[in-house]
């Protein structure tokens, strides 16, 4: 009846595992209690869970990402503290538990922190930047969200029922095969990743079609804001790279569940094939994560330098070049696995070449700041912190791209330092900059700048303290993922790294305080104009938060930096004579149902509860058929109601100062604002 699920699956065997489970369960219960206390179930269910509005979906993605950021950070803190004390003793984490923690840290940070954060920012902003009213496929958009949430749910529940994988976030066979890893851990990992991966593929399709088909009149490709350009390339990468993850993990699941022999030691398996398939996705994935962050930096650096972006065309071309080259470097993840010298050389050279377009971008951002009037708001601080730190990571990457060097560094903490040096400043700083930059757009009030600045300094100082020692340790030969060690010379570095992790914790706490303080003070920081930063692209033309339809009348784009141009021409805030009816997607619970059923399916397959798996699949199929037979998926917002919403907006605009940055030292936007009044 319950497959291999027995009472032993609950973690009563270890106090640490049991407290992890208790925190997860209590977290879930307290969210339920909070919603009940606020009597918000109706709002949660009918305004949010069932919503197909790209803006609400974007916000839900980012909420998921922030929750998972905390979970992933707890894992990191546990690893750092374990390594800081485990010289010549076992520390406080047994090896099996430590292995689960580094696996879940990597899995969560890549799949369930970075991916939802990216999808959330894209969802909220990209349609507004191109002057669209929604994404091309609002229903599929919601399905993507709930599939991602289902995958995250599987990772979380593995803490309470059963165990998580011990095979690392990349799950290499044969260790991840049934022979060496017979429990449920690897299965949890596989199905979490597979289900979320399907969601990501669909997101990619959705974003690509939106950008190609839903742009406002006059929004030529080469007038698109750079964030949209990076989303365009990222979507292409998602569409073409995620199938490789699906195949790699799907085949591994077949091996484990049905005793097949794709990646086994014996019977004709070929484990190198898994590694090839995995990194065929895994390397483009790095660029899937980082390109939209590059887009955020481009928007932020232009806005807070009060200048047009330097080298727009070169930034676009560099983005496309990175997109193409990202498919030609995957083998650098396993130089040491014995390919011929020629093959290794090819991939080594391609890897160093990919640094060139990235370098072009860095120069473009620097030259955007050159002779700009810089305003140091938190998003800009994160951007500058990124520029400085990312270059260091890039240099260590070029070093690792040389196969002979890689032979020495492979699997050491040098590698760990390198990719954290790319991903924390490159990806996370980008998303946090985007979060602080676009928060007023999403919620109508600004985030507290003092606490934002504090979070930045904690993050960047903590980052350097946590990861620079790992470079040194890697050069000294410390392998990654060590649960304990007996070389005394390593310990001081690991203690510094643990202190760094603690300072990052302060950075996360600052983010939490920032959010709380900003909500408390929201009446003073209201964004009445929809354009709190003297912005340049079309998302600042909508109100904050935007009306459900974003644009009552689709804007007519005549230039790059469309909104800046409209302000210059004095047409940014003109109220049209009349409005038209607008068709919008109706809310529906089907996407959330599909996500829930996918979660049940994943759980059932992990525990071999086959009847439940079949039931969940039938449920998903029926839900899709019901939706596919529904021809009335939209409702019409009558012109009358649009008029009411817009009249209220223009009444607010008349009262508001045109720009809240006017008081900032270095503000140079006066001429633009005169034109717009």
């Amino acid at each position, binding site marked *: 009846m319950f497959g291999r699920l027995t009472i032993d699956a609950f973690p009563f065997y270890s106090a640490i595992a049991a407290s992890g489970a208790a925190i997860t369960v209590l977290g879930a219960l307290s969210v339920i209690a909070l919603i009940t206390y606020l009597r918000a179930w109706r709002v949660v269910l009918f305004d949010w869970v069932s919503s197909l509005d790209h803006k609400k979906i974007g916000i839900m993605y980012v909420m998921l990402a922030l929750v998972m950021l905390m979970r992933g950070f707890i894992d990191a803190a546990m690893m750092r503290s374990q390594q800081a004390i485990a010289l010549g003793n076992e520390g406080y984490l047994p090896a099996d538990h430590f292995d689960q923690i580094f696996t879940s840290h990597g899995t969560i940070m890549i799949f369930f922190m970075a991916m939802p954060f990216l999808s959330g920012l894209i969802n909220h902003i990209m349609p507004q930047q191109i002057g669209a009213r929604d994404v091309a496929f609002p229903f599929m958009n919601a399905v993507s969200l709930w599939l991602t949430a289902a995958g995250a749910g599987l990772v979380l529940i593995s803490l309470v029922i059963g165990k998580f994988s011990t095979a690392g976030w990349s799950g290499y066979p044969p260790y991840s095969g049934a022979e060496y890893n017979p429990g449920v851990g690897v299965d949890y990992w596989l199905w979490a990743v597979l289900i979320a991966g399907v969601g990501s593929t669909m997101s990619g399709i959705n974003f690509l079609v939106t950008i190609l088909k839903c742009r406002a009149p006059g929004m030529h490709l080469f007038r698109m804001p750079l964030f949209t350009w990076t989303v365009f390339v990222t979507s292409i990468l998602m*569409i073409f790279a995620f199938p490789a993850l699906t195949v790699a993990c799907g085949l591994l699941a077949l091996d484990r569940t049905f005793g097949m*022999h794709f990646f086994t030691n014996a019977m004709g398996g070929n484990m190198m094939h898994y590694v090839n*398939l995995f990194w065929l996705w895994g390397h483009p994935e790095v660029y899937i994560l980082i390109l939209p962050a590059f887009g955020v930096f481009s928007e932020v650096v232009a806005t807070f330098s009060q200048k047009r972006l330097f080298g727009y065309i070169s930034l676009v071309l560099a983005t496309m070049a990175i997109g193409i080259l990202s498919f030609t470097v995957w083998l650098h993840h396993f130089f040491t696995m014995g390919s011929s010298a020629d093959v290794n050389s090819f991939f080594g050279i391609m890897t160093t070449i990919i640094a060139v377009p990235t370098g072009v971008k860095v120069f473009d951002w620097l030259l955007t700041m050159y002779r700009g009037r810089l305003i140091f708001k938190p998003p800009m601080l994160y951007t500058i912190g990124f520029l400085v730190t990312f270059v260091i990571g890039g240099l260590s990457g070029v070093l690792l791209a040389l196969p002979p060097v890689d032979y020495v560094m492979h699997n050491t903490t040098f590698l760990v330092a390198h990719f954290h040096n790319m991903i924390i400043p490159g990806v996370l700083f980008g998303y946090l900059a985007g979060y602080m930059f676009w928060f007023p757009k999403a919620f109508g009030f600004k985030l507290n700048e003092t606490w934002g600045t504090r979070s930045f300094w904690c993050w960047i100082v903590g980052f350097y303290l946590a990861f620079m020692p790992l470079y040194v340790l890697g050069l000294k030969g410390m392998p990654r993922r060590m649960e304990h060690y007996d070389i005394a010379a390593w310990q001081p570095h690991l203690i510094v790294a643990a202190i760094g992790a603690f300072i990052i914790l302060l950075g996360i706490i600052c983010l939490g305080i920032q959010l709380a303080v900003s909500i408390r003070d929201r009446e003073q920081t209201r964004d009445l104009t929809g354009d709190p930063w003297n912005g340049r692209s079309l998302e600042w033309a909508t109100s904050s938060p935007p009306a459900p339809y974003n644009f009552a009348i689709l804007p007519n784009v005549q230039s790059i930096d469309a909104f800046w141009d409209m302000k210059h021409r004095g047409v940014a805030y003109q109220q049209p004579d009349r409005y038209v009816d607008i068709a919008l997607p109706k809310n529906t619970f089907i996407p959330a149902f599909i996500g829930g059923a996918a979660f049940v399916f994943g759980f059932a397959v992990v525990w071999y509860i086959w009847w439940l798996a079949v039931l969940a699949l039938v449920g998903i199929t029926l839900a899709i058929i019901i939706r596919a037979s529904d021809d009335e998926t939209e409702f019409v917002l009558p012109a009358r109601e649009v008029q009411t919403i817009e009249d209220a907006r223009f009444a607010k605009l008349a009262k508001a100062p045109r720009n809240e940055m006017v008081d900032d030292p270095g503000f140079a936007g006066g001429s633009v604002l005169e034109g717009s009044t």
Partner: protein
Amino acid sequence: MNEGASATIETAALPFAEARKYEEKAFGFWVYLMSDAIIFALLFATYLVMLDNTAGGPTGQQLFSLERAAGETTLLLLSSTTFGFASVALAASNRPRVLQWLVVTAALGLGFLFLEFGEFNGMIAEGAGPDRSGFLSAFFALVGTHGLHVSVGIIWILVMIGQVLAKGLTRPVASRIMRLGLFWHFLDIIWIGIFSIVYLPGLI
């Protein structure tokens, strides 16, 4: 292709916004097919990597039957043709014809699945199941994934038959049949790959 042509004729008279919706859906579906094509490309690559990994078990030459593969090919290619007829009938808004050809297509698809199921069953009975060797795992994964797609396609055809019966050839229904056509022809192209990469070289 017929579908493309008929879609343009169909949508020519539509209001702009509605026509754009269908165009977006068709384009999105093409993009999905490209993504799906990558899955098959990687399964083909897996098959070729695993080709010699028979672990002392049977090889393709011992297992494959040209007659059966030819039968499967005939049924599937015929079903693609009959779907083409359904699309022509759709362009002419001939509802009974559309239904008739969709039923024929589904029947041919079922025939294909019947043959494939028999082939798989026979191999497993001989002890040449997917757990016998890396080669057989790759074979079952590639051909089985195609078979799974055909099964989904048949369910989709049945749903569309139901929709045509219940709603008639309305524009949303027609646009769905158009995308179903893309899907069905795509599976045909994949099968041609399977026939020429799996069965033919396996038997030579």
